[in-house]
């Protein structure tokens, strides 16, 4: 989070990242109709936050419909083991996939 230089400033909840680096998260298993930015192969998968992307940004899925106001939250770079995503993965166990995911798609584990 951007440090607040002035004492006594209280940030709104959506200005503060909900998750921190090393938090374990699960991608929601939703199947929304319309525009989405979370690939289906990740739904329900367990990952770990490796970077909080600053600053908070507009939710792309809402932006797709021109709804930009009031939906600024954080994106997180989340790492998944390939073996978590693909049960039959043939490569070494430490191969990984990283992707940026909007806060509303993540559930704390």
């Amino acid at each position, binding site marked *: 989070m951007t440090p607040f230089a002035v004492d006594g400033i209280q940030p709104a909840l959506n200005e503060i990242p909900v998750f921190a680096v090393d938090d374990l998260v699960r991608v929601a298993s939703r199947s929304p109709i319309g525009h989405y*930015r*979370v*690939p289906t*192969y990740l739904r329900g998968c367990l990952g770990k936050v490796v*970077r909080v*992307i600053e600053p908070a*940004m507009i939710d*792309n899925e809402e932006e797709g419909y021109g709804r930009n106001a009031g939906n600024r939250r954080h*994106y997180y*770079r989340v790492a998944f083991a*390939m073996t978590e*995503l*693909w049960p039959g*993965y*043939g*490569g*070494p166990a*430490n*191969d*990984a*996939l*990283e*992707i*940026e*995911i*909007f806060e509303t798609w993540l559930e704390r584990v």
Partner: protein
Amino acid sequence: MSEHDHPHEPITSDSKPSYYEIMETAVRELLIGKGLITANEIRHQIEVLDSRTPALGARVVAKAWSDPTFRERLLADGRAACEELGITFYDDTQLIVLENTETVHNLIVCTLCSCYPRPVLGLPPDWYKAKPYRARAVSEPRKVLAEFGTIIPDDVEIRVSDSTAVIRYLVLPRRPQGTEGWSEDELAAIVTRDAMIGVIPVTVAERAAS
């Protein structure tokens, strides 16, 4: 009139436009017709895109190899470091630069469409937008890399980055041995588009071949 002696076919366009070509034309004509944008603005944006080529990314990589403090700034904030070199970002995307090391090899893909670091690399190659690459890069990256001739040892982690929202990725390849003392221009000349996507390493042989 042409001086050479072989006949030329007349230039024609007989194939019917596709569904999406028709849709693009219709939306473009509506936007222009309603005065929301002008034909000149579209032409200008095409000029902007045409001005972006892998040569820009190659300059960024060469500078990162030559200047450790620039490399640190590039890894901390890819967009800001590129802007230092005068490479503007005409959209709201951020850039994360992924450094290849002895233990990690990065590969970028966009499984949903064709997200690509266009401000620094220009338009993506056709294979990057094709479904086989997009599906297989995330599920069997080692096989995909092997088809590009890139064999990654099992003790090196493959880290695939799927760019789908507001972040774009650029791979900072490893500097090849035998390039000690090279100038930034000489280094930039061996950095290829495919190396910055992560499907091949940078090799010294590229210079001889180009």
